[in-house]
């Protein structure tokens, strides 16, 4: 498929195929494929080393049961699905990976990486978890420097500052484009659904054709919709949902579909597959680009951080900017940090923001879809009745 003939929506519907072609071509040219499994992985460094960072987070239910031969059943489905791909060899991107860059973002991943490392090269970065602690930050800077050395040694390259700045420029551009797309949802009548917005992402960052399509999407959707062409999915009367919590990775969009087919409109996704990683850019003019990268990534408000007050600040800000009418907090089963933090999010939503709050704890199996739909529908009814008051 050539990118000029298709609409942005069609283009990103084929995101996995596009990425497959792109990565396959890169691999055949000798470009190292580097798997990443978390937004803390500094893609810019990998790109500066001449590598292609590919997100390998699993979103498929079918790879969970093979994974459970090794991992406990009561574990986050994202970890199990990712590991299932490793075991069954059914993710070509993982198969191509010359290295997996991992982080100690959560205990489940951390221990899973030990098992993965028995079969393929895995490099683990230690993520400090106190975001306001200077020593913690300095430690993180060192972790990035060690990753740089690892990449240089493994791929026999020298990572010059100029190269890092080049990849910072690419990533800043991509983040800015995706941020602008997300901001379309601030409109009274958003031109796309939350589900469509979620499609505007790629498991490989910085693909030139993707960047063109992001721009094209912005041009297409930036014009306010006239009333006549408004379709049902673009109704401005639907309650505006702020979705927070765990990432909704490719293949695991079930809850997003349920929310939008139950009458809600997701106007803001404050999670790793939404705004969280693209809210801020990297300072391209910084004297030391490694420190600049460390600064950007260390500000990611992941629930592994303690205290994670930045997440509360961001939700306050986003709820206002996107005029959210309720908060839905998605928690993957056994994701302890998001699960516990949901107590604080509920308190923030209900007591401070005066917004109805709902926590959905689930995994990738569709067995509870009908139950979740009832709860979401009831929440939407509650929001609608609040409007009538």
């Amino acid at each position, binding site marked *: 498929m050539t990118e000029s003939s298709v609409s942005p929506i069609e283009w990103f519907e084929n995101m996995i195929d596009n990425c497959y072609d792109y990565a396959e071509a890169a691999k055949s040219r000798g470009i190292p494929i580097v798997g990443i499994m978390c937004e803390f992985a500094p893609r810019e460094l990998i790109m500066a080393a001449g590598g292609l960072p590919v997100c390998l987070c699993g979103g498929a239910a079918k790879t969970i049961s093979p994974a459970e031969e090794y991992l406990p059943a009561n574990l986050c489905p994202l970890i199990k699905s990712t590991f299932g791909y490793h075991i069954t060899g059914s993710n070509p991107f993982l198969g191509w990976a010359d290295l997996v860059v991992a982080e100690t973002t959560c205990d489940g991943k951390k221990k899973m990486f030990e098992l993965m490392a028995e079969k393929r090269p895995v490099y683990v970065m230690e993520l400090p978890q106190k975001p306001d602690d200077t020593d913690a930050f300095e430690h993180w800077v060192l972790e990035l420097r060690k990753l740089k050395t690892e990449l240089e040694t493994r791929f026999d390259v020298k990572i010059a500052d100029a190269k890092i700045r080049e990849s910072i420029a690419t990533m800043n551009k991509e983040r800015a484009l995706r941020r602008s797309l997300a901001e379309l949802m601030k409109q009274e009548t958003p031109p796309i659904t939350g589900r469509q917005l979620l499609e505007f992402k790629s498991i490989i960052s910085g693909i030139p054709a993707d960047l063109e399509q992001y721009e094209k999407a912005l041009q297409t959707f930036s014009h306010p919709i006239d009333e006549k062409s408004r379709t049902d999915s673009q109704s401005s009367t639907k309650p505006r949902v702020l979705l927070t919590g765990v990432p909704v990775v490719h293949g695991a969009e079930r809850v997003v579909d349920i929310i939008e087919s139950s009458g809600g409109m997701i106007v803001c996704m404050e999670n790793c597959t939404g705004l969280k990683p693209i809210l801020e850019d990297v300072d391209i003019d910084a004297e030391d680009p490694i420190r600049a990268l460390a600064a950007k990534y260390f500000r990611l408000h992941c629930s592994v951080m303690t205290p994670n007050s930045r997440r509360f600040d961001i939700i306050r800000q986003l709820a206002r900017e996107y005029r959210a009418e309720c908060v839905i907090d998605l928690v993957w089963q056994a994701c302890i940090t998001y699960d516990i933090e949901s107590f604080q999010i509920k308190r923030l939503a*209900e007591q401070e923001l005066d917004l109805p709050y709902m926590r959905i704890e689930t995994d990738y199996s569709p067995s*509870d879809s*009908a*139950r*979740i739909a*009832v709860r979401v529908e*009831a929440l939407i009814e*509650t929001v609608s009745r609040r409007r009538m008051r």
Partner: protein
Amino acid sequence: MIGVGIDAGSRAIKIALVDADTEKMIASGIVKQGINSEELALGLFDELLAGNGFTCDDVKRIVATGYARSRIGIADTTITEITCHAHGVRHLVPGVRTIIEIGGQDSKFLRLDPGGSVHDFAMNDRCAAGTGRFLEVVADRLGVGLEDLGQLSSMSTRPAMISSMCIVFAETEIIGLLSSGASPEDIVAGVQNSIATRVSTMIGRSATPPVVFTGGVAMIPGMAHALESVIGESVSISPSPQMTGALGAAMLALEQAGF
């Protein structure tokens, strides 16, 4: 003119007819849920209309609720059982702040704000422990009727501990208790406590009074008492507990029709 609420639940279909002017429930009926919800609902609907001297022309609007609500073709619209129960109970017990509803496969708790709107709610999602089905399984296993459970539990001296979170495992646990000599009275009391405990976990730290108990399970003696002892608040049983969903649906039908 009348508003009609059809509550197509997991174990029974309930229909309520409400008069548009007086807002009073004129008639109600119930039929056991089966393979064809639509047909069963239609049969009951026709019977209720004819039995009370109404024709279809008298029906202003029909709202369906309950888990099979989308299969009720005669309904003009559907509303979730959460909103309907809140509306129905609020109509019967003005000022209610906490509603506990336990039905065939559901247990839910609703917190209403002082104005009567749903503020917060929780329900069981992946498992039917803590629901009416649990009591059915127990009654069946002990060879007694559902209606006898209250009498039995009131005679318990040492309620058994039922710790399983799953109906199937709890049944195994009950068999084990029986073989180790536990009395049916103590087992029933233990099961009721276990259901109450599960519901109280949903509620969290505090249930704002007044607390009203509704749903089919509210009709089983002993359950309200078990809830009271676990949540530490007095719990009153809603009038017509099995009908509050259908009643709420009928009230909402009238509201939507502009009454």
